[in-house]
């Protein structure tokens, strides 16, 4: 399901136009991203948690050249599904 289909589907369920849905989605995402950017985690009940995690720096060895290099730390966005969602999916599929 791509973005278009998602918006159509949401718009149909909410009985609003697609452009309104798009606006809502944009403001929702903007809000989420700004929160994530500050390092906050966002939890959606019965869906999952978005979390920013720091991957610490590490030494990697190139398998062929055996050159060692230090990979710097980085922040990544993690998503962990809630148990409810997991159960739902695994019972249905």
């Amino acid at each position: 399901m791509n973005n278009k289909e998602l918006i159509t589907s949401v718009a149909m369920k909410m009985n609003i136009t697609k452009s309104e849905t798009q606006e809502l989605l944009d403001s929702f995402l903007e809000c989420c991203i700004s929160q994530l950017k500050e390092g906050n985690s966002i939890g959606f009940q019965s869906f999952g948690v978005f979390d920013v995690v720091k991957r610490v720096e590490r030494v990697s060895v190139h398998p062929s050249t055996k050159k060692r290099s230090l990979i710097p730390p980085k922040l990544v966005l993690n998503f962990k599904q809630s148990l409810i969602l997991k159960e739902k999916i695994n019972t249905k599929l």
Partner: protein
Amino acid sequence: MSKEKISIPEIIEWMIKDNKTTKKTAEEFIKVFLSTIEDALLSGESVKVKGFGTFKLQWYEARRSIDVNTGNEIIIPGFYRTVFVPENELRDVINEPFAHLEAVPLPSDEEDVKGTEKLGNDDSESDEKTDQDQGLRFFTSQASEIKSILSDIYAMSAKKNNQEDESEVLDDDVDFEDDEYDDDVEEIDDFGDDYVEKEQFAIEESDDDFDIIREVAVLYPADSNAIVVDEEAKMEDEKEVDISEDDELKEIKEDQATNAEKSDEEILVEQEIDKKNDAENEISGSQISETEGITSDKLGKDVTEDVINDDDLMFDDDEKSARKIPAWLLVLLSLVILGVLIGWFASSHIKKTIRTKKNGQRQEYIADSLAKGISARENGDSLVMLQKDTAIDSISASGAAVSDSDIYATPRNYTEFLAVEKMVPGSQLTRFARQYYNHPNFWVYIYEANKEQIADPDNVPVNIDVKIPKMDPRLIDPKNKVSMEYALKLQREYLK
């Protein structure tokens, strides 16, 4: 960076502030949005949200584990997990605080390995040099040999140009060009000498002499003064004069001025350039004829003819010494053509040259043919042909003989090789296969060709030279199912 937990109510608050939506719609939207994603996931679909990322399901296989409390073995059943892959933009935004950091190569014990690697490279270069010295000791009389060397030199000079970070190289380059220039003048002197003596010797011999000198001059641009001493001892005075005049000539070119006194030298230079061009034409001609399957004997004849033409040219030029200004213009014109040709050669032959350089076969051939003496001319020619042979020749020959089905049935014997690669720690046959045959699966053929060196394909010894055989293109066609299956079958056999 604060670490807060934010949930739906806070998000709704933010949305209301931002976008003046009512609490009700915002709440409903989030609910519907999440449930829509959930539904899609439940139906096994992945969901892409633009500007955010993709939700999809990933299957995790069942696995054995041990219950930490009881110590009993349990089986964790397989399950689906919802994974979220953020879009690149989002990923970058999240990582912004650390975005400026880059991977730093670490100095460590492995540094030694690097050092030896570098040393190894140096060694190979010096090896080349010693090989060239060997080649110096034996004078060869193969016209086609010169062609390959010429093209090598051109390719090398282009390669040097590429490494602009090394200022030394640049300097060398300049020296190199100057030397070449001088050498060419010497060549002409010698050649003229030859011509004088031509009545005493057969045409063939003078031809050979010229070839030798030419080869030496090109091979050893820096040392050639010492090398050609015998031939040029008598001409030395003249040569010096020529060189100095040559320098003057360069200045004149820069000044765009013509001088009647210099006309002789100009003509000399012109001859030299003509010869160079001819040599290049010979090279290109030889390559074309090679692909057409013309034997090298004929090539030799061609070259002889060319050289004779050169003789004629030289005399013509002497007669035309009265034409001063046109000669000067011709010099400029031919210089331009020369430059273009050099550029073209450098680009088109750099790859081939690197390979031949690597395996150093050329030098071996020189040694071989020279050991056999003057009578080795024919042998040498055939050797050179072997060496210069590109994939087209033999494959078309062998390919025509063997039909499609037989190709897999007949055992392969490897006689011709594309290159020789040195196994260093970390090298893999599959990598060579990918490099030369465009697919890693065809490593089996490399193994077959090097069986005596490689006892166990899983554990290839290092520091051996692996020969990369030339393969029938039908055997190494990644798009052809049959060839792939055959390679896989061989792989299973060898990896038993």
